[in-house]
């Protein structure tokens, strides 16, 4: 079945550590890719998205993601995390329709 896979369900890091959250999808052809974030007590909101152009996409709060078509991946990175990055992160894929498929999410906890 076509899907979006997030490799880590839980990640614990210390402040200033580097972050990489994996996301792989199983859809062929053209895809639109998203990372959404949900901070504690808040609603899901867009972190960044990619649909064309430079495969290295920069988002809010110092996050970036790289689209590697040959690996069907769209990993999220941040060079130095802060305590305020504690949140749940969702990767999502859209193939040019109304339907967006979400991954199961990765819960990040950053120790102060």
């Amino acid at each position, binding site marked *: 079945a076509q899907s979006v896979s997030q490799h880590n*369900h839980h990640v614990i890091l210390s402040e200033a550590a580097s972050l990489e959250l994996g996301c792989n999808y199983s859809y062929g052809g053209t895809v*639109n890719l998203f990372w959404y974030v949900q901070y504690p007590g808040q609603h*899901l909101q867009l972190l960044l*998205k990619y*649909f064309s152009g430079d495969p290295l996409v920069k988002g809010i709060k110092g996050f970036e993601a790289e689209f590697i078509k040959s690996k069907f991946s769209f990993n999220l990175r941040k060079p130095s995390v802060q305590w305020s990055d504690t949140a749940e992160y969702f990767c999502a894929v859209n*193939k040019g329709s*109304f339907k967006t498929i979400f991954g199961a999410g990765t819960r990040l906890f950053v120790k102060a």
Partner: protein
Amino acid sequence: DAMVIQNPRYQVTQFGKPVTLSCSQTLNHNVMYWYQQKSSQAPKLLFHYYDKDFNNEADTPDNFQSRRPNTSLCFLDIRSPGLGDAAMYLCATSRDPSGGTDTQYFGPGTRLTVL
């Protein structure tokens, strides 16, 4: 601030007792979505409205219905909730997702408990 509002935030119902969740938006977006999210799982699209056009996902149970009386308001009706319907229900909007690149704007969700 323009936003997506869901009421109630928490809903408790009894097995088999109909329940309605509501979502309103001030973004004036054309599309409204309902997702079901169970614990530690991905949000799963149930259906969406594009203006007045209702689009049901193929695997959405008949037990789930939706109404959109106007652009800013949308309801999720669960006719006979079962224990397996306990979940977080998320409402989202987007302006025009026909190309698949649109950002979705989410409400805070309604957590449904079925006793």
